[in-house]
């Protein structure tokens, strides 16, 4: 092998970078469940759970546009039930524990939504 020193150094760098996802996984903690605690006294959200898990961010974004830009405060769910479009008064009424519900998944997946730049966190003094 020619230029063995440089080549072996390069191969080592490549091998480490090429397997980096595994190193990252092995050096970190385990992640087996989201650990979220859903509200206890309420059985169903405004839409079904699968939809809410995957699409809640889009729904919230549409709600913001409806309420603030369209001045429409009524959301008709797929079941036909009507809901008041409001993060503070509708969502947070049940999902009152921000740390045990929102943050559990968001922090783990590095999602930092900018809800709380305008809204006040539940339980936080004004």
């Amino acid at each position, binding site marked *: *092998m*020619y*230029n*063995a020193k440089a*080549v072996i150094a*390069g*191969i080592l760098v*490549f*091998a480490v970078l*090429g*397997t*980096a*996802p*595994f190193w*990252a*996984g*092995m*050096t*970190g*903690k*385990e*992640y*087996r*469940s*989201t650990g979220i605690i859903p509200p206890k006294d309420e059985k169903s959200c405004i839409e079904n759970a*699968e939809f809410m*898990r*995957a*699409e809640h*961010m*889009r729904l*919230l*974004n549409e709600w913001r546009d409806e309420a603030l830009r369209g001045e429409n405060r009524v959301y008709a769910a797929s079941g036909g039930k009507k809901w008041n479009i409001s993060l503070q008064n509708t969502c947070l009424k049940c999902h009152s524990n921000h740390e045990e519900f929102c943050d559990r*998944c968001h*922090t*783990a*997946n*590095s*999602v*930092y*939504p*900018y809800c709380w730049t305008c809204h006040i966190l539940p339980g936080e003094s004004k």
Partner: protein
Amino acid sequence: MFVSLLLVLLIGAIAWAGSAAGFASLFGVALPYLAAAVFVVGMIRRMVYWAKSPVPFRIPTTGGQEQSLDFIRQAKIDCPGTQAGVFARMFLEVCLFRSLFRNTEADARAGLPANSGPGSVYYSSKWLWCFALLFHYCFLLVFLRHFRFFAEPTPQWVTWLETLDGLMQIGAPRFFMTGGILLAALLFLLGRRVFNGRLRCISLVNDYFPLWLLLGIVCTGICLRYFDKTEIAMVKIFIMGVTQFSPVSAEGIAPLFFVHVALVSTLLLYFPFSKLTHMAGVFFSPTRNAANDSRRVRHINPWNPPKQYFTYAEYEDAYRDVMAEAGLPLEKEPDRPAG
């Protein structure tokens, strides 16, 4: 072009159907493991193979005046004479794609005032450089951003990257600019092969296939994030199982996710056997990594057979007596005087 498109669509369709039919762990666990192993081992084998190939001569592609007399100014980066110059050249090549920046386009034009008629014009063409640079850096950032799925807790630098990437705060989930630029750059790189006649003429399946494959990866990725979402908390649990070598059930994850993973695995499997090895090859390229010093330094061909020397001292040892007999001058007289 269509063959490679069909091939990518076929891989996607197989992954979709397979994961929908319950073979998700095949596409989500077994295939990525195989692909990662083939990628790493295949690339190392490649690099060792290249490193074993002798480069008997300096063959740098020169783009300027070589080192000469003191009063002639040398192009120190485009025709480097020292290791430092080579380092600067390689750095600019690898990080900024300098050789693409120097790209020129040749065109035949009618009615040139200088020729008073048709003639050829040469002009600088930066499009390829621009989109190639965008593609590679966005791809790197997109890869780095994915570390939020690989590690728990998510490294802080990933969050910083995402903050920068989603700085425009468009929509929810936030629009990541690198994803959009990546798609645009890939479409340009594909478009130039399709719409430029000369380029289309020299483009083969192995040029189109990686482009379609990357487009497939980018499109499924964008789809998974913005349009046909699957729950990323479940995806993270699943991927963490893979990276920690204790796979978990793939229940509840959309088939599109496995299409994405299968396409990425295909890319990794294909990588060491394709033109994509330029990732490592650029460092081994003797037209880039050699100093243009063939006039100052003696380069010995490494496959020359070992020389059979016969020094004068050995010659004299062998023929001393005969030489003494003939009365030839000797450096060392024989032990006994010649009879």
